[in-house]
């Protein structure tokens, strides 16, 4: 029986490439946002960043499945596309978590605090403008937000973030892997 070539190395390579690209984009957005004055809008670049990065992450599976489909002797089914996409998403979650850990703990440990201060000020402005909540409720929301940021710095918070990344990146890469397998499939 003819053995299919392995997709693990292309998956790791694409996860590394896309992971580095996504980290650079998120750092550019983060630094440019915290360097500006808070607008008091709920819908700023930082709101878009988390899920935007995850959706852009689906490119990793597209690249891996597309490259794999071009290899000799490969006949792709959507099941192959799903598995390749899922594994690529897993590698991508590992890469982005490691890079963000290294940046936030070794290169610029003050970044999380700067982000927290920006987000808290932005929310204060938002509540001031909208006037939708009373003083106590606003304090509660802002307190929860600060607690959330502080939790992200702990090992438990990092592991939780990693878990959510695995689910999010796994799902979007599984879907994009299946669709790419369908698009690249030969008649």
């Amino acid at each position: 029986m003819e053995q299919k070539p392995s997709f693990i190395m292309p998956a790791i390579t694409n996860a590394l490439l896309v992971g580095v690209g996504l980290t650079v984009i998120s750092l550019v957005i983060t630094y440019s946002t915290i360097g500006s004055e808070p607008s008091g809008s709920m819908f700023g670049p930082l709101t878009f960043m988390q899920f935007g990065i995850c959706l852009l992450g689906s490119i990793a599976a597209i690249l891996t499945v597309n490259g794999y489909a071009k290899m000799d002797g490969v006949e792709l089914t959507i099941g192959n596309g799903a598995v390749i996409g899922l594994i690529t998403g897993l590698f991508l979650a590992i890469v982005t978590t490691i890079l963000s850990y290294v940046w936030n703990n070794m290169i610029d440990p003050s970044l999380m605090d700067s982000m927290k201060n920006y987000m808290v000020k932005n929310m204060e402005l938002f509540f001031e403008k909208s006037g939708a909540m009373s003083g106590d409720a606003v304090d509660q929301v802002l307190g929860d937000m600060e607690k959330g940021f502080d939790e992200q710095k702990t090992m438990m918070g990092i592991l939780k973030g990693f878990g959510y990344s695995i689910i999010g990146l796994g799902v979007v890469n599984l879907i994009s892997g299946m669709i790419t397998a369908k698009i690249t499939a030969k008649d």
Partner: protein
Amino acid sequence: MNSDTKWILVLIGILVFILLSSLSSIIGFPEWIQHFSHSWLQTICHTNPERSYTLLGERMILCSRCTGIYFSFTLGLISSFFISFPKNLRTKRLLFLASCIVFMLVDVVFDWLGIWSNSNTSRFLTGIVFGLSLSFFFFQLSKKNGEQLDGTKT
């Protein structure tokens, strides 16, 4: 049941899981499931409550656009078991997907530039069309209308 059918069923299962997660507070799931759903859905959607639909007095977690995408993608995949496409439409599916992405980007960018103000309805509709265009890739292709090809290979 062939391998492709099984994987389409897995995909439908994942999409139903996403939609149920979004409805967790409406269905009345325990607090920890609602918290988990909110946290993980934030990785695939901005989950801004101002842009989400309200059902039975509770907000959905996914925004109106994502709700449209996942809902129509699920319905489209279910329909793929009953409807087949003529084979000459194969390449047009990619064109349709590209048009839907442009259509959605126009809705987002024009709103951002202040040219047009989008609403939950416009977001939901662009999402519906995009989700459908994704599901079209999983439809069986027939040489002519109604004539099925072997479904064991993609």
